[in-house]
């Protein structure tokens, strides 16, 4: 059973077997415009919920990615180093940023579910 949650900073986390896959939402990539560069964390790095862990850059903005959950980074999406524009094409599929072995799944309760997020994003305009 896959659980998908969203943050107010427009990250998503999709959780399966205690491992979370993190990326930015389709709404977020639309706001950013053409993505030109992605700065990814290092494998093995430990991260706390809400900590800035990656950067997604477009021509007009550089956006910090705040980790939706705490844990240890087990995999990063190296494809993005060569193809940052994948984020514009498939943000919520192939263009995930990193995978995290979650240390505290209870944290996820604070995040929004899909309906709540969509309402939140549309309110933001």
């Amino acid at each position, binding site marked *: 059973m896959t659980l998908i949650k969203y943050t107010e900073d427009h990250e998503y986390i999709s959780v399966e077997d205690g491992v979370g896959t993190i990326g930015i939402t389709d709404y977020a990539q639309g706001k950013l415009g053409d993505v030109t*560069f992605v700065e990814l964390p290092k494998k093995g790095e430990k991260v706390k919920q809400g900590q800035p862990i990656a950067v997604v*850059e*477009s*021509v*007009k*903005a*550089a956006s*910090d990615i705040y980790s939706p959950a705490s844990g240890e980074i087990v995999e990063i999406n190296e494809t993005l180093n060569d193809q940052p524009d994948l984020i514009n094409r498939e943000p919520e599929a192939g263009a995930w940023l990193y995978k995290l072995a979650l240390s505290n799944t209870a944290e996820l309760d604070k995040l929004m579910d899909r309906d709540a997020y969509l309402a939140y994003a549309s309110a933001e305009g």
Partner: protein
Amino acid sequence: MRYLPHTDADRRTMLDAIGVADIDALFAAVPEGSLRDELPDLPRAQSEIAVERALSRLAARNVPASSVPFFAGAGAYKHHVPATVDHIIQRSEFMTAYTPYQPEIAQGTLHYLFEFQTQVAALTGMEVANASMYDGSTAASEAVLMAHRVTRRGKAVVAGGVHPHYRAVIETVSRLGGFEVDARAVDPATSFDADADNGTSCIVVQMPDAFGRVADLSALADKAHEAGALLVVVVTEAVSFGALKSPGAMGADIVVAEGQSIGNGLNFGGPYLGLFATRKKFVRQMPGRLCGETVDHDGRRGFVLTLSTREQHIRREKATSNICTNSGLCALAFTAHLTLLGEAGLRKLARVNHASAVALAKALERVEGVDVITPAFFNEFTIRTPKPGAAVIDALADRGVIGGVPASRLWPDEPTLAHTIVVAATETTTPDDIAAFRAALEEVLHG
């Protein structure tokens, strides 16, 4: 007032169009009592003739470098600037343009910045260069901060041969930013000595150093890299790139330089221009503006400012640097002069500079009691004199010779350097200048 186009009738018409009775109605938001009725206590408007007369009088109280035998260097050098260069930088379209934020009508500026970046990368032996910084010293402090970002460490080791003002800028900016500086002893014999530990982000070394000495930095680069630190090489005399093995070839990770020597006058210390070059893998940590190649909508080559997401106007408190300007017109002077020189011209210029300095060293060595203490140098070296350097320079000035910079002015806290003077010669130095210097020095020391 000759710079203000409006007539009083224009002003009246415009106030009517705005719908206010008088100009002060437009200053209504200024708090009561802060809008001044009286004029500032300063002179009234003056004609061009009057201003020119007054400023010329002030200028006449200074001794221009070109009017006397002149040997001061220490971070600013008297070189010849071709007449063409000054004409080019005074073109309206260059001088009175802004930062190229609308690239379609700023290709002139962007095009020369791209050429400038290419030239700076070539000179320093590095992969990428930015569009210039304020000056060499601020570029050096920015290099240290960049090394901290790259290595995620917070301590810089500064070798003793780094220009004392550069060291002071690095120390000031580091202390205020919460970083550590380990400045090594100032001694002409050990001016390149430094080492790094696992807390060191970079070793900062100057080449030629502040005493004029040159040395191979490859071993120092290895030492830095073994400790996981970067090697930052500072160059204050850009003409030396035409004679000496490049910092990049010796293992530098960041090269910063003062570019004044090429295309820019002495100007009493500013405006100058900082050169900043590094390896491509560090480009996102590099401060300053960058110009990049692209194409327009019709597929034609063009240039734009790029990677501006590193800069303050987008990143705000997360920016790589707070700097928002470069030294555009000084960079134009630099690149235009270097284009006129070309590879062959720069090499020749460097050769002439070195020959002048060698001839000067030989002449001064013949003065009794004077020793040249710099074994290998480019166009600047240090002499030891039997009398204190400051007194010697003062007495030389009375005899119409600017004989260099006394080390005591640069390092007032180093008593062992009190009897030394840093002297420089360039392509502008004539055999007569050298003879006049030697004769005056004889007189000051033994007359």
